[in-house]
């Protein structure tokens, strides 16, 4: 294959990564932005989404699409419920103190990882894609399912944007993010908003995981990479900036795809991680974020 088509393939792969990454990072960014909590267990919520998708699709059997659609609905609900529970039991009791919540979410990370290892096992297991379709380009055929991930992600991002900017729920969330004390004084139930945002963040990660599990098998250690990549995206994009998150996810996903195809995946991860650490060092507010008050 000559250079042009090779690059095109790399761009497609990169866009699929971007799509999943944008959803995962958006969850982290919301929790980070609204609650000022760094959720180190975010990657494990992602992993739980993928693992529960395998359980659901295996239990249902029949046509792969049935299991997949069921997983797409049930997995996020399960993960969201678990996030809600941990928020009530742990994070709220810590008064959302930044350092204490970091330690607590590290604890959650280990507990969830161990639970997955115990009940699911160390194997990586595949989920069948809901449909098998090859989109034929002049140079190669490409998985139609992968393209549909990109479409699904765009739709979900548009939905989130709509909720955040055009609805009352979004207004309440933005008010809480801007100044939680004043919001509380105006009768906004801040602790319920926090619980909701934490669950929503986890659900976004779970949806992203269900979308990716047909092309990347479910494994109990799969959470760390999305966590670090989401940190990267959230930092490059700037805190709580939806536009920044999307642009950064596309940038990171594309560079990851292109470097992975032409050089090596390890090198791609190294460069991306190093780049972000440098962004955070020299431009702490991110590319699109506003300087923190």
């Amino acid at each position, binding site marked *: 294959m000559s250079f042009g088509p090779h690059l095109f393939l790399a761009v497609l792969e990169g866009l699929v990564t971007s799509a999943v990454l944008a959803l995962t990072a958006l969850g982290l960014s919301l929790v980070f932005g609204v609650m000022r909590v*760094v959720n180190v267990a975010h990657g494990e919520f992602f992993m739980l989404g993928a693992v529960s998708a395998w359980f659901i699709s295996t239990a249902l059997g029949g046509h792969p699409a049935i299991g997949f659609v069921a997983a797409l609905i049930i997995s996020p609900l399960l993960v969201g419920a678990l996030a809600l529970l941990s928020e009530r039991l*742990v994070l709220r*009791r*810590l008064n959302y103190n*930044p*350092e*204490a919540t*970091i*330690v*607590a979410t*590290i*604890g*959650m*990370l*280990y*507990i*969830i*990882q*161990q*639970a997955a*290892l*115990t009940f699911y096992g160390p194997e990586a297991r595949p989920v069948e894609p809901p449909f098998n379709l090859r989109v034929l380009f002049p140079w190669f055929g490409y998985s139609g399912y992968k393209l549909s991930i990109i479409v699904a992600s765009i739709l979900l991002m548009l939905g989130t944007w709509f909720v955040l900017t055009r609805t009352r729920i979004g207004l309440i969330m933005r008010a809480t993010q801007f100044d939680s004390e004043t919001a509380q004084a105006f009768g906004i139930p801040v602790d319920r908003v926090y619980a909701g945002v934490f669950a929503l963040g986890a659900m976004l990660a779970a949806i992203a995981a269900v979308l990716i599990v047909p092309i990347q098998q479910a494994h109990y250690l799969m959470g*760390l990479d999305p966590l*670090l990549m989401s*940190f*990267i995206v959230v*930092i490059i994009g700037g805190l709580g900036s939806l536009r920044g998150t999307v642009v950064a996810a596309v940038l990171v996903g594309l560079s990851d795809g292109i470097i992975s195809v032409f050089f*090596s995946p*390890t*090198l791609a*991860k*190294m460069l991306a*991680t*190093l780049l*972000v*650490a*440098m962004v*955070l*060092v*020299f431009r*702490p507010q991110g590319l699109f974020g506003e300087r923190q008050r």
Partner: protein
Amino acid sequence: MSRTAAAWALHLVVIGILFLLQFVLPEYHHGVLARVMVLAVFAMGYNLLFGYVGLLSLGHAMFFAAGLYGAGLTVEHFGFGMVPAFGAGLAAGAVSGLVIGLLALRTTGVAFMIVTMMFAQVTYLAILYCAEWTRGDDGFVLAQPLRSVNLAGLQLDLTNPATRYFAALALFAVTLLVTLAVVRSSFGRVLVAIRENEERARMLGYDAFANKLVAVVVSATICAAAGAAYALLFGYVGASFASVQYSILPLLWVLLGGAATVLGPFLGTLFMYYVVDVTSGFTSAYLFIVGLALILLVLFFPAGVLGTIRARWLRWLP
């Protein structure tokens, strides 16, 4: 007895007990204690930054790995002796501490945690990427004949359990006393002042950045000493020691023993090592124990064992 004398006496007694223990301990626990002492050095280095300066780093595995690989690679590829290899490990730790400190200290709070975690991940990936030299995840084992020291005509074989225990104890004792001296010095007081209120410390005329930078370098060097000792005493060098999990373990040990106490990291390491050791006897679910311990500690026992004892009874505890 003055408070200073009491503090020094207590720490010397602990070292003395550890010295005597080697004659009475059964073989298995003898080996465990040697390992715990080396890992406690890692925890003490971590505590200097986390406990006394209040900087939460999730990247200290990279300093441990700097020592581990600084010592291991020079023995494996350049045929260094034990002493120069240990020195190479220390140097690698100090240099990486300086570079990372200069960069990461430009950020504060949560951003500091994320930046250190990312630099550590880059280090981990770099170790995997340079698999030709480091053998990546599998790591490599230092050959037994290489691991002996000639000190003033005395041939010490580090693969011998008694020598190994003694070397671990020596490193532990030196680190413990150095830490005690550092935190009781005026430099240590400045670090605590920065932890409590950085703005005020700056207004009093202290250069917060320079003091924090020195703290990072010292902390990194201590952690690298633990890494180098681990490579030379136990003979195994592998990428798992640079993983995120290895950055989190010292945090757990320090939290359990009591952050900002000199002996706390050792207590935490000892206790946690045995908890994991005992539980892994009848279940493989040790990650669950680690996770639960972190959450319960931060919820109900934020001062740790020694921190609580200090707050309740022994006010003079350093």
